[in-house]
């Protein structure tokens, strides 16, 4: 436990140092930590709070407000599937059903083998080539059942 805390401290220290003297540093710090560690561990919050002269509760309040921040690590792959209206109009709901079945998980879940986390997203700005998704930061348009099968196979590797 102590060791984990030290590791987190050394991982977050440079990120905090990079931003603490800038205007509005909290979101860039949290974004940086999530990018670095894949999530924002609870243990990192006291370091941020101290550096920015905030309470831990204030920092936690911010972390819990935004959909992006995870308290636990995600799977090796993160699949974000758009659930918004333009994608609905092109059969997005059916593709979402299919993908949940193929992956054996529901939204906000990570597969037992740690391969993939499935997250809903409300619009990727790809509404003229719906339904759309983002796999590990790469965008995918005109998602159909065949492509869903391919994705499910890709993330298992």
């Amino acid at each position, binding site marked *: 436990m102590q060791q984990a805390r030290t590791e987190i401290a050394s991982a977050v220290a440079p990120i905090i140092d990079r931003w603490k003297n800038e205007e509005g540093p*909290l979101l860039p710090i949290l974004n940086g930590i999530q990018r670095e560690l894949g999530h924002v561990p609870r243990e990192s919050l006291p370091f941020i709070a101290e550096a920015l002269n905030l309470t831990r509760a204030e920092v936690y309040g911010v972390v819990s407000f935004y959909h992006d921040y995870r308290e636990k690590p995600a799977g090796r792959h993160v699949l974000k599937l758009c659930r918004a209206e333009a994608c609905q109009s*092109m059969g997005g709901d059916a593709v979402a059903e299919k993908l949940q079945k193929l992956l054996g998980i529901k939204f906000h879940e990570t597969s037992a083998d740690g391969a993939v986390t499935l997250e809903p997203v409300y619009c990727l700005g790809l*509404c003229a080539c719906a339904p759309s998704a983002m796999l590990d930061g790469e*965008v995918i348009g005109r998602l159909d059942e065949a492509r869903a099968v391919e994705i499910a196979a890709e993330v298992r590797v």
Partner: protein
Amino acid sequence: MTVNIYIPRDAGALALGAEKVAAAALEEIEKRGLDAKIVRNGSRGMFWLEPMVEVETAEGRVAYGPVKPGDLAGLFDAGLTEGGAHMLSLGKPEEIPFLAKQTRLTFARCGIIDPVSLEDYEKHGGLRGLRNALEKTPLGIVEEVTESGLRGRGGAGFPTGIKWKTVHDTDGPQKYIVCNADEGDSGTFSDRMIMEGDPFVLIEGMTIAGIAVGATKGYVYLRSEYPNVHKILNEAIDAARASGMLGNSVLGSKYAFDMEVRVGAGAYVCGEETALLDSLEGKRGQVRAKPPLPAHEGLFGKPTVINNVISLASVPIILDKGGAYYRDFGMGRSRGTIPIQITGNVKHGGLFEAAFGMTLGELVDEIGGGTATGRPVRAVQVGGPLGAYWPRDLFDTPFDYEAFSEKDGLIGHAGIVVFDDTVDLLKQARFAMEFCAVESCGKCTPCRIGSTRGVEVLDRLKQGIAPQEQIETVTDLCNTMKFGSLCALGGFTPYPVMSALTHFPEDFRPAPQREAAE
């Protein structure tokens, strides 16, 4: 002479395979030892043709699309570099009807230039607006923008010039320009496209705004769902800084202006301007009560101009050609052009910039070409998740702020989502309430609780439990949300719900009655 081959790096094109197309093109160029260069441009905004490859020939650009990686060898065999004929030939891109019918002012360069080349930007008319602005007094710039009649393109439609005047007239040692790039509405991508296809126009617009109101620092608040924009915008800002367009002396003038991009963390409500400011300050993205207006007390309590991407990106052309030039487009009190995004279940989906005044029907049926599935268009939602659902009966409504609000709808960020006849408007109404519940910042009760109750009431209606009572309850609830919410999230969620109920009552009949009717 080196031939330029254009392959977009726009996220829409990337989602359809542009990266693999570019790799295959490079391979062919190398294999054949051709004197050709690949330029990664933005998109022209015709997504049924993406990835669209263009070649610069002596007679102008020639386009091919939609191109798959496997098509490249054949294309080069057909003489792609000279604009040779091929099955995928589209001819001159500017003669494709979808583009030819547009009036591209804000998007004049998008899809044409290399988005991160300042030289290319200037060659195509960039920086003329900023140079003109530097010849004017700050108040003169504000007057030009006021004269243009430009209204906030984020959705609220507030006159940009008046906003700028307020900040100009407010004293303060530090003022800010904040660009709202939290484009979260489904059916919209114009902010994304301009930032990926012509980022300098936004940088130029923000710089002009800074000079006009006396602000030296700008922030672009960008949603986290747009990593590709982040990359391109930062490349452009670096280039602008290196060339002296940004910095202590903008283009060698006495004005200082610099800017940076800040990325959000996935909260739709941060598109609301005061929630956005709180988020930029590092707080929960909760809506502030107004007054004070951001123009008086905005970011960190300082006078702040907060404008949408498209509003700011429309400023350079106004300063280049004059407010009167821009104002001469449009109808009524909706002046200039608006980039309309035609999306969802539509044959020709994309971005269509036009003067205000075209009817919804023209846009959906003629420009959009009807549905992708080939079934009849039953409904369109305009203005994102807080916009109304429109039936065909109202397709004669012109695209105009006032005409839309007269019919209980809104233009919003000008996205149109097309649905065919398989759409269930009760389901869509429920989704509107559900979305509001997920994204509510929680500060005001009508939005926070109202949306959750709304989902429950519509679920009961779906189950056929006391239907008339549920319809009355949801109507009452919408009334409370509309007039009692602090911001547009709770305040406008009634638009999709009530429009669905009003225009498509047949979808709100409980199951047994519906079956009997069929």
